[in-house]
């Protein structure tokens, strides 16, 4: 039974079909990567799945429930969380507060209980705080907890965004180029983190340009070109697919050799 099911999804901007008739499924604990040349529609696809754009055609369902066009804050409640290629961080808050914001839903209670600072509220806040510290440790940002997020490096912000997404305890996590702008060490850390997450049962949908990373960790790959799905399958099959090589890997033979090896 698939957790996320995308069927015939499409959207047009003016006369341009940015994404057309894309279908695939993601099972719990599975790592599915969406690859394709720049402008293939990967981020647009993500934006439709995560409720930022209203799809023009097709449907998205989460655990059997139709969630096409459901706004992001409702999807967050239903267990779908994401990160952004160009970062959506609370720049003026501390690193810790950014992760704490991820506990928004689990901290929900009445305004009056907050104002009176009832013991239940305080316990909940303490739990969230402890959880946030643990998540920061997990992405190796625990030493930066009290810094203002805007002062962190790009790679660190990428990991902070993942930590915040994890605070929602998602069932499926969409990662848009988590390794972009990271050095080799950071990329490897993200690699391990993603593997760990999927081992814990979280489904991962990944957009990534680092082919080595994609080929190594994905269970399944979906290839987009000009907004359409041109191939999908296991990494080894996809990397040998002539249509994929022509569209994408053809210009990077060394990378492909690496991926095969």
């Amino acid at each position: 039974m698939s957790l996320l099911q995308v069927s015939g999804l499409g959207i047009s901007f003016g006369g341009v079909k940015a994404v057309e008739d894309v279908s695939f499924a993601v099972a719990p604990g599975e790592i599915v990567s969406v690859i394709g040349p720049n402008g293939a529609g990967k981020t647009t696809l993500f934006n439709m799945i995560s409720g930022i754009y209203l799809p023009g055609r097709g449907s998205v369902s989460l655990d059997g429930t139709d969630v096409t066009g459901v706004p992001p804050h409702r999807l967050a409640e239903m267990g779908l969380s994401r990160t952004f290629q160009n970062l959506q961080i609370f720049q003026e808050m501390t690193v810790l507060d950014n992760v704490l914001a991820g506990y928004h839903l689990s901290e929900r209670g009445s305004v009056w209980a907050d104002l009176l600072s009832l013991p239940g509220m305080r316990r909940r806040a303490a739990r969230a705080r402890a959880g946030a510290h643990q998540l920061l440790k997990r992405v190796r940002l625990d030493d930066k907890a009290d810094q203002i997020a805007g002062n962190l490096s790009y790679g660190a912000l990428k990991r902070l965004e993942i930590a915040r997404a994890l605070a929602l305890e998602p069932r499926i996590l969409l990662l848009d180029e988590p390794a972009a702008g990271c050095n080799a060490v950071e990329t490897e850390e993200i690699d391990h983190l993603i593997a760990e997450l999927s081992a814990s049962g979280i489904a991962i949908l990944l957009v990534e340009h680092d082919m080595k990373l994609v080929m190594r960790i994905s269970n399944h790959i979906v290839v987009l070109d000009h907004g359409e799905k041109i191939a999908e399958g296991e990494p080894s099959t996809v990397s040998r697919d002539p249509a994929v090589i022509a569209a994408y890997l053809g210009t990077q033979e060394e990378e492909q050799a690496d991926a095969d090896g």
Partner: protein
Amino acid sequence: MDALLQFLFSGLTVGAVYALVALGFTIIYNASDVVNFAQGEFVMLGGMITVFAFDAGVPLPLAAVVAILVTAAIGVALNKLAIEPARGAPVVSLIIITIGASILIRGATQLVFDKQLHRFPAFSGDDPIRVLGATILPQSLWVIGGALAVFVGLWVFFTRTLTGKAVLATANNRIAAQLVGINTGWIMTLSFGLSAAIGAFAGVLVTPITLVSYDVGVALALKGFAAAMLGGMGNPKGALVGGLLLGCLEAMTAGYVSSQYKEAVAFIVILAVLFVMPRGLFGAKTTERV
């Protein structure tokens, strides 16, 4: 010295009203980047509705509560009917929509009520209290106390409650707020309602001193805007300090220079702030990431 104290008292009274208007600006600006020029209209509505409810025989405290609730509902309606449908439009367009809304509210008030000046009795009588040779009206204490109470209330709301923090998160990054499960549409509605209620509260407090008619909102919106700019747009502390400071500057100008120039002070302040420190007294320093 007596004169200075007297000017200070009247400055603080007027300044407290400007501070309340500026706080209203701050809340909506934070949630949406929109400067709501109908904010002055909320103050006027607070005064007008109280006057007419009171004249109809409703006890004053109840009339005030009704006025605040009705104005809050109008604030919510403004968001739902005018701002929300235009979501995605540039901020400047949204600001112009609020100017349109303010003209509409003024016109409607003229039709529903009338064009006369009105007042209702002060809460604790009209006998001035003598302090060190100067006098202050009991109602002035209500106004100043009300502004401080609203400021403290907002401070607690924004720092201690999850909902308040959700407003701040929405202000900081709307998409990130949605990602963590904050319903930003509801936060907008809440901000407009809260802001309108605070405006109406100011109107209730100040009407016994300055009187109210359908057209008092424009000047208040401009003064409140100047106060918010002076303090740093978007900062509640700035709104409070900016409002009190502007009120005192006005009172001093009226007292020591000429009351003819009183009205000019707000505009000189706006110009000076824009020239010298565009972020205001408490405004955040912005650094662009490259």
